[in-house]
């Protein structure tokens, strides 16, 4: 458990550092140096505008971090509130809240996010908000299930019998017992959100094309598939490395060489 959070914290730190410092100005255009292959000074080469690819990718890492933090915040907050609230409320309110969550599961996250970002423009902040709004459904269902299970435990019934109010049961018993699983699910969702954000930027509705997002860069570099195909390798590898680290950090049961579950 500890190892997983350490890896995530380390990654957040590295990505934040990427946002604070890049070896070159990512926006600096030098048309004389178009499509320069990787060299000692520019380890990943320079793109069709002569920009340093490494610096662009580093800024992209920072944007991805912003998106991940916002998506996590939004979907976790809405999901936990609705799910736990439904479990506490019970009755018709519970049904109504859960059906609303179902509604957001039925509608594809990417379509909701596409519509919202084409509405408000595509920046890391709006993309994070849009993906969060499109993706909170599963969290609510999970939070509800966990809260229901906790509330059926004898110690919660005992607390109830002793006259502890709803707020007390929520803060002392339900949340401490559900938060761990919810947070783990949240983190295991991060890789999927990295790809979802890259997809949004790749499709590029409402995007500012000068923004160095991994998905947007890939969309740009895809045009050079015939003569400079190495260029489109980098953004993809950046996404792949991020999702792979997140995946291996968070799903130890799926790790290579781990014990086999039956």
């Amino acid at each position, binding site marked *: 458990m500890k190892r997983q959070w350490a890896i995530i914290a380390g990654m957040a730190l590295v990505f934040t550092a990427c946002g604070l410092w890049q070896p070159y100005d990512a926006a600096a255009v030098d048309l004389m140096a178009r499509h320069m292959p990787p060299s000692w000074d520019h380890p990943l080469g320079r793109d069709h505008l002569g920009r340093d690819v490494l610096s662009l990718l580093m800024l992209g890492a920072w944007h991805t971090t912003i998106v991940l933090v916002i998506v996590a915040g939004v979907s976790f907050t809405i999901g936990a509130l609705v799910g736990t609230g439904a479990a506490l409320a019970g009755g018709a309110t519970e049904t109504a809240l859960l*059906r609303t969550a179902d*509604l957001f599961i*039925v509608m594809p996250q990417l*379509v909701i996010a596409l519509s919202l970002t084409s509405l408000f423009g595509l920046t890391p902040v709006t993309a994070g908000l849009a993906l969060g709004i499109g993706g909170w459904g599963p969290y609510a269902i999970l939070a509800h299930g966990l809260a229901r299970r906790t509330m059926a435990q004898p110690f919660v019934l005992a607390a109830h019998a002793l006259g502890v109010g709803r707020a007390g049961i929520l803060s002392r018993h339900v949340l401490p017992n559900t938060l761990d699983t919810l947070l783990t699910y949240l983190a295991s969702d991060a890789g999927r959100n990295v790809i979802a954000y890259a997809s949004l930027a790749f499709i590029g509705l409402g995007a500012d094309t000068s923004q160095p997002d991994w998905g947007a860069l*890939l969309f740009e570099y895809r045009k050079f*598939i015939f003569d400079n195909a190495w260029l489109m390798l980098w953004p*993809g590898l950046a996404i792949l490395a991020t*999702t792979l680290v997140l*995946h291996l950090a968070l799903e130890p049961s799926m790790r290579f060489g781990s014990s086999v579950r039956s």
Partner: protein
Amino acid sequence: MVHLSRHVLQASLMLWGVSIFAFAIIHAMPADPVLITLVEMNIPVTPENEAVLRTEWGLDRPLIEQYGAWLWRFVGGDWGRSFRTDLPILSEFLQRLPYSATIGLGGLGIAAILALPLGFAAACRPGGTVDYLSRALSIGGQVIPAFWLGLVLLWLLAVELRLIRPFFGGAAEQLLLPTLLVGFYSIGSLGRVFRNELLAITVQPFFRTALAKGLTPETALRRHALRHALFGYVAALTPECAWVVGGTAIVEIVFAVPGISLFLVESIAARDYFVLQAYVMVVAVWMVLIHGLSLILRALLDPRTRR
């Protein structure tokens, strides 16, 4: 039967909710389709011209009336006309649906069949080479961005090796790569599902008896576990079909497949209200249908779930 009718009622309520949401989100968009269309068609933007279009499209009426009129006609099969192409949206969808269905269902079908030998081989030797391979495929399906893998495959097969001409050949040549790509994204997880279904049976006493008789793991699995595992596999396969419509959007865009998702993206860019509404509804109806189908299938295959 009571159970089934309750599900139908719930599904209809949910679709109604989706329709409200779809209508609301679209009408919240700040861009005005009337202005966009007038500018695109080089018609002078005068109040008169605006009013003509607004009346024709019914945009001058109160929102609640617009919603009611749209829903009524939608259920009746009149999905309105696209602002952009001026064609009936229903026929646009029907024209594009075969492309989306081919890459979605085709890819899933290929994966579903290939996952059987993969899962079986993985279950024969848990922890063996094939098991690692299936695990790697499953992880790969989750961590490799589809649009990037699509581009790399394009580069490798079309540019370097010149094996296919994805954008100039016939429909089959165009749809081959996207279909295989969708298949790649399902085969790993489906293989894992089948493997786990098989392994779940190996702990049963009757299976241990089979091994104790001296059967090799392969024979024991084939004779005593395969049929049980297939039931679970089919039940797990049905929900997978849910994302076939709507979930392959990014693949359609990379390979310029003229399917419904590409249509959607073009329409969102042009603020084509009714297309977006129709798309959300199509996806939601499909999801609800698949969900219902998987419930029925589960009940047919496994009497224990019939309550």
